[in-house]
């Protein structure tokens, strides 16, 4: 029996039959420093947001559902939704523009990776694992 290409491939949420530019509405990637892997995002719960939420694409809606109740990193959003990271970044940029989510930069801009921060990491690891 003839089999089409990719017939036995695992079904994924984003079918390759839906081009990525459709999911992202043709939008381009935000600049590199926006929505990095460790940028934290959450839903704003804004009133006007609920109106806009009704018109979201299924994928954007999925992202919204995921971050509805708390903060997650951009990488976690990609991991849980199984959407490619680039697509997630574009969707998040769109959602932030619509005031549906807010993003927290991983390390506040004014601060450098300094001794205090590394020291806090070391303390945290020691408390967790013992040393």
């Amino acid at each position: 029996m003839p089999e089409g290409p990719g017939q036995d491939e695992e079904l994924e949420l984003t079918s390759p039959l839906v081009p990525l530019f459709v999911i992202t509405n043709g939008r381009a990637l935000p600049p590199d420093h926006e929505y990095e892997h460790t940028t934290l995002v959450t839903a704003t719960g804004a009133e006007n947001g609920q109106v806009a939420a009704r018109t979201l694409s299924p994928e954007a809606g999925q992202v919204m559902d995921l971050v509805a109740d708390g903060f997650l990193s951009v990488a976690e959003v990609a991991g849980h939704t199984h959407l490619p990271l680039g697509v997630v970044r574009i969707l998040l940029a769109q959602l932030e523009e619509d005031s549906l989510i807010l993003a927290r930069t991983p390390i506040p801009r004014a601060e450098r990776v300094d001794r205090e921060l590394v020291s806090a990491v070391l303390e945290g690891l020691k408390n967790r694992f013992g040393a």
Partner: protein
Amino acid sequence: MYLDPDVSHAVKILIVGHFGVGKTTCIGSLSEIEPLRTEEEITEASVGFDDLSGTPDKTTTTVAMDFGRLTLSDTLVLYLFGTPGQERFKEMWEELSRGALGALVLVDPERLHESFPVLDLVERFGLTYAIAVNHFEGTTHYPLDEVREALNLTDETPVVECDVRDENSSAQALITLVKHLMSQLG
């Protein structure tokens, strides 16, 4: 699943190494969440069959990357990214190395030569690193001095033995790296 609402700092450490060295296992041993996977897009040079000129063209492919999470305090969370060490993934390194505290380089003593491209990338992106020599319980211990010599490491670079399947062993390797990062900050 969610982070503490007071979380204000998200830091990252890269767990790097060649294919099959145990990055994913290490992250699984340490992470407080079931390790997750991202699909990252990378561009690659390729030559198509119908490309008569033979000029390399760019195509986009995706590469999977595993990562885990460790909450270290109400305000601080650490992410561990398992970063593949091949030259072709250097685009990913550009973003991942930015703001990264450092890198834990996993090394298989039986396949030391495969770690050279990994160390190349780590050094090119200016990451401070420590070496964790993967050691499975029941196998012979590999002299760490020989690893240091074979990999041409500086005296300051920490080299520790590590069973990546073991939470405590992986944690001690990570702690060794962070102590080294502290010492480098002076």
